[in-house]
C-alpha cells in the first residue's frame, strides 16, 4: 500500500495505490494552508479506504521545487511517516509530476510554476517517456523560453498558474505552443506514485527538499562578498 503526497504548490494531491491500482485519490485546488489540511486529508483518506498506518508499505513525496513552505510540509510528513513506520521513502520532482499530465504528447512537455518577477520553476521533458531534456530549475522565464524555442518542436505547457505566462509563451513560441486543458494542469498523486516506480528509495534522514533556489539571505551575502573582493 503506497501513500503519495504532493503539497509543493497551492494544490494538495494525495493518493493510496495498491498493486498498481488507485484505491482512492484526492486533488484539491482550494489554496488552503497545507499545514492545516495535509494531515487531516491523509487521515480521512486512509479512514475511507480502511487503511491503518501499519498497512503502508511505501511513502512517495513530491520533492520540489515549488513553495518552500509547501515542499517542507510534504517532506516533513513523508519523512516522519517513512522513518517511524520503517518503510521506504521515494521522492520525485514536483515538476515531473506536473509534466505527467502531458505524457504521451507528441513533442516536449514544459511544466511551469510561477515564481514571481518574471521567473518560474520549470523544466523540459520529452513527451513520450518524460525523459529530462532541460533539468528542473529556477529561471528567468523569458530566457528559458528562448532556449525551448531552439528545439523547434511542439511544446505542451502545463501548470496551475500557466495563464500568468500565456501571452509570453504565445509570443515566444507561436504555433509551437500548446496549452494543457484545465483538467490537466494540477498535480495528481497517482501520477506521482507511478513515476516513483522508476526511482530508487532514498535514505529517509537525508531526503531533503529540492528547492532549486538559494535563500535570499544567502544570495545577498554572496553579492556583498563579491562586492568586497572586487
Amino acid at each position, binding site marked *: 500500500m503506497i501513500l503519495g503526497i504532493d503539497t509543493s504548490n497551492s494544490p494538495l494531491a494525495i493518493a493510496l495505490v495498491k498493486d498498481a491500482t488507485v484505491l482512492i485519490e484526492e486533488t484539491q485546488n482550494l489554496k488552503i*494552508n497545507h*499545514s*492545516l489540511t*495535509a*494531515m*487531516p486529508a*491523509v*487521515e480521512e483518506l486512509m479512514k475511507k479506504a480502511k487503511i491503518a*498506518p501499519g498497512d503502508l508499505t511505501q511513502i512517495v513525496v513530491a520533492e520540489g521545487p515549488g513553495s*518552500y*513552505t509547501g515542499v*517542507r*510540509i510534504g*517532506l*516533513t*510528513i513523508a*519523512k*516522519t*511517516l517513512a*522513518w*517511524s*513506520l520503517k518503510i521506504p521513502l521515494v521522492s520525485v520532482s514536483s515538476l515531473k509530476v506536473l509534466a505527467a499530465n502531458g505524457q504521451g504528447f507528441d513533442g516536449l512537455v514544459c511544466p511551469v510554476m510561477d515564481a514571481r518577477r518574471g521567473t518560474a520553476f520549470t523544466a523540459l521533458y520529452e513527451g513520450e517517456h518524460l525523459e529530462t531534456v532541460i533539468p528542473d530549475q529556477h529561471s528567468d522565464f523569458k530566457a528559458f523560453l528562448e532556449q525551448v524555442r531552439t528545439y523547434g518542436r511542439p511544446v505542451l505547457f502545463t501548470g496551475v498558474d500557466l495563464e500568468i505566462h500565456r501571452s509570453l509563451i504565445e509570443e515566444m513560441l507561436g504555433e509551437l505552443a500548446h496549452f494543457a486543458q484545465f483538467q490537466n494542469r494540477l498535480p495528481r498523486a497517482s501520477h506521482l506514485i507511478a513515476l516513483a516506480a522508476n526511482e530508487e528509495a532514498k535514505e*529517509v*534522514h*537525508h531526503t*531533503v*527538499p529540492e*528547492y532549486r533556489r538559494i*535563500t*535570499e*539571505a*544567502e544570495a545577498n*551575502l554572496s553579492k556583498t562578498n563579491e562586492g568586497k573582493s572586487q
Partner: protein
Amino acid sequence: MNEDIYVLGIETSCDETAASVVKNGTEIVSNVVASQIESHKRFGGVVPEIASRHHVEQITIVIEEALQQADLAPAELSAVAVTEGPGLVGALLVGVNAAKAFAFAHSLPLVGVHHIAGHIYANRLEQEMEFPLLSLVISGGHTELILMKEHGDFTVIGETRDDAAGEAYDKVARTLNLPYPGGPHIDRLAHESTEAVDFPRVWLEEGSYDFSFSGLKSSVLNYMHNMKQRGEAPVPEAVAAGFQNSVVEVVTAKTLRAAREFGVKQVIAAGGVAANKGLRTSLAETFEEEKIPFFIPPLPLCTDNAAMIAAAGTVMYEKGLTGDMTMNGRPGMPLSSWI
C-alpha cells in the same frame, strides 16, 4: 499503581531542532538539540528560511536519537508534545507536521504546547513547583513576568513593550562589534570591567511590571556615536558593564517587587538570557536575602530545548488537553491558561 507517563517533546520554534523524552513530567530520559547557531552567525542573526531548511534536514534524525537514547519504541510513549507557537512560522510548521505525522502513525495523543509555558516548566525537571509562583521569562524573543497560582494557570503581570532583553543584548553587541549571539560576550566583558558607563534605568510608570529596553539600547548607540564624533575610543568593557547593570538592576527590582506583592512561594527564571551570569547572580543574591526560594535551570534547560515542551505537555496531557490533525503552527500564539 499508576503507570509511568513518557512524553516525546518536539521543539522547532526558532533555530534549534530538538526532541526529548520526559518521564512523568519531571525526569529527563533523553534530550537532543541540534543547534543552528553556526549557520546563522554569518548573517548576524537567525534567518527564518534558513532555519526552516535546517529543521527539515534534522527533524527525523533528532527524534530518532531521542527515542534511541531513551531506549523506547513509539508504542511505549503516552503522548507527543510539540511547540505550537509562538515562533517563526516556517520553523514551527516543521515540528508541528512531524509531530502530527508521528502521532498519526502510532495512534498517540497530540499535545500543542506554548513555547513560554515550556520555558517555565523546564524548572519542573529540576524541582517540583510550588504555588503561587512567579516566573521571569527572559530571552531573545521574550521578557515577561508570569504569575501562576496553580499548574497551567498563567497571568502575565508584566512584559516588554518593545524589544526583548535578549534582542537588546544582540543589538548592543553588534555596535560593539561582538560576534552573534552577543549576550554571552557582553556578559563576559561586563565581568572583566571595573568601570561602567552610566546608562539610564527605564522604570516606566509607577507600579508597572512592564519592561522597555529600546530606550536603553538607543542610549548605548548614542553614546557610541558621540564618542566617535569627539574622536574618542569607547571602552567596550565599560559600555558592556553599563548596559548590563541597567538591565540587571531593573529586571531584578521588578521581579522582587512582584514577588513581594503576590506573596509567592517560589521565583523561577527561564529563557536564554537567564543564563546570563550577571543576572543570575543578582537574582540569586536578592532572593536569598528575601528568603524566597529562587531557582534557575542549568544552561541547557534555559535555552530552547524539547524537554521543557515534553514537561509542560505532560501536565496538559494529564488534563486531557490534546489536539488533533488540524493543529497548525501559531506564530503569534497567546499564553493562555489550561484551566
